[in-house]
């Protein structure tokens, strides 16, 4: 198992953050380690991990990183929503192969900070976050859906 210090992104590596609280200032541990260490408050989820294993400990977590080793592996989107659906309110950080065109969907799935391997063009990213004025599905961001808006007008 990797040492905790080897894991995780530092606050300096976070390019976009949609929270006002102080970021966690230390590294994350693996899901397996988090299950054993009762004091761990920062965890990193790999694509093969079951996010639901963390549900009994959500209250003590302040940072969950979800790693995207390759942008095409979409398991992290489900992991994010599962945590938010279970009431996780801490920071949810997308790390790894995070590209401009994934940002808007990641936001919808509950990610509120982003630490891409390669820094993204700021203007492109700003545009990407604002891609969708409206949304069809209900998701972790609690935006009102198009169907709900139709009902109100």
């Amino acid at each position: 198992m990797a040492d905790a210090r080897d894991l995780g992104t530092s606050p300096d590596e976070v390019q976009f953050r949609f929270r006002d609280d102080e970021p966690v200032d230390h590294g994350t541990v693996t899901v397996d380690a988090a299950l054993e260490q009762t004091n761990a408050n920062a965890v990193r989820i790999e694509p093969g991990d079951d996010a639901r294993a963390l549900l009994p400990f959500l209250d003590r977590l302040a940072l969950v990183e979800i790693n995207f080793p390759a942008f095409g592996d979409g398991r992290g989107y489900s992991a994010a929503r599962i945590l938010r659906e279970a009431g996780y309110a801490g920071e949810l950080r997308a790390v790894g192969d995070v590209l401009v065109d994934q940002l808007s969907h990641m936001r919808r799935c509950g990610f509120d900070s982003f630490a891409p391997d390669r820094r993204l063009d700021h203007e492109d990213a700003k545009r990407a976050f604002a891609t969708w004025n409206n949304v069809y599905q209900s998701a972790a961001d609690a935006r009102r859906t198009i169907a709900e808006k139709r009902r109100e007008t």
Partner: protein
Amino acid sequence: MYRYDLYDQQMVDARVAEFRDQARRRLEGKLTEDQFKPLRLMNGLYLQLHAYMLRVAIPYGTLSSRQMEALADIADKYDRGYGHFTTRQNIQYNWIRLEDAADALEDLSKVEMHAIQTSGNCIRNISSDHFAGAAHDEVADPRPYAELLRQWSSFHPEFTYLPRKFKIAVIASEKDRAAMRLHDIGIRIVSRDGELGAQFYVGGGMGRTPMIAPLVRDFVPLDQLVTYAEACLRVYNRYGRRDNKYKARIKILVHELGAEEYTRQVEEEFAHLLSVGVEPPREELARIAAFFADPPFAEGARVIDRSDPDFALWVDRNTHRHKHDAYVSAVISLKPVGGIPGDATSEQMRLVARLARDYSFDELRVMHTQNLLLPHVAIADLPALWAELDAAGLGSPNMDTIEDIIACPGLDYCSLANARSIPLAQRISERFAATGRTGELGELKLKISGCINACGHHHAGHIGILGVDKKGTENYQLSLGGSEAEDVALARITGPGFDEDGVIAAVEKVTDVYLAAREQGERFLDTYRRIGMEPFKEALYG
């Protein structure tokens, strides 16, 4: 027909703008081809053998005349004056320039169309029964449910990077005219004790590992339809295989877990999602359904003069019983003898659009058999309609006959193909038209794929042909006994393959076996099922 409101239009417009931006970043070198590829694919843009191919979504195969005319205009403006209708009720243009792609998408958006999610590892365009809303035997029009799912699946934030592509079909009758159980999810709307609900079949598919979808849920209440679909997808997104592209479809997951265990996991997720609340409000389904109200049918003649034998043959073969007895649905064959299955010129598209306006309440359909359909034609109008079709070379009376061949684009266009499909389809239809056997053979579905990916549905053909590469030459495997209908079955390979001439002769031989062995009223498939493979093998290899 469904019409966009401001929201739907905004979504499509936003997507066109997003794609323009992506194309710009690709040109500026900010995106590598590897990074650009999944983005262009999610906008229907493939790189094929000779050029880019643009696949345009035709949701549940339904089109207005105006939309068909726009498709014709795109064929003229950006392609070479024709398009190719596909087995998933879409249209493909084979000669698109990358520089023009965003403009083509913008033209589409002006007629409430798009190419969103027609490729890529996401939920693809949703298909349906081509007779939806017209058939005499459906419990409901399946299209409102398909439209509800279209909106749910469009830009779904969680399911845009699935292990592999994902195809959904929705039908609403016992008869299956959409190959429902050969989809990743097949939904059949059923009526039980006067209440409508949805059967979910999950894990079907063709490709290199064909499988028939098992029933996962017998009755999903319609106000939980989206939630159940979301549960099916989430289990797949989390646990579908990602280590091997060829084992990444949901059919492999369902097969490896077993239908029972997959179902258990879905039910668990479903219960959870019900508590989260992801279903659109009930009123949304009612709002959508209102768009699919019947057109104003009128009473009229139920019988017509059949003294012209060519006309009578076309009526018998190419029309389908309608729920209103003064109407029929009329199939416009895109399978002229010697033609390219599914191809239509811009001129033909415009003609069909006008005929839909004149004779079918402005509505037309694309069939998964690569034909077009006027869903609501007054029986009294059939002679006039047929005369126009016949004059334009669109009157081939061959629906569901051996001339009505499904064929993938094959090695003439496709970068995945191992063999050509189109010339084979052309030669087979010519052969049977020449020998005059087409009519005698009755219903006989022949399907040709140019590679193992099975876009030509060869696994589901009464007679299937698969083109393979054998030491650098094209070789064709013959299979028998498949069906995509309610009697769904996977075809079995007869034995060693043939060269192009050989496989045409082989098809003739198996039809000879059928004609000699058939009993009263039997279709080819029925005879095959009764007598088994042996007599056919004997004739082919004995």
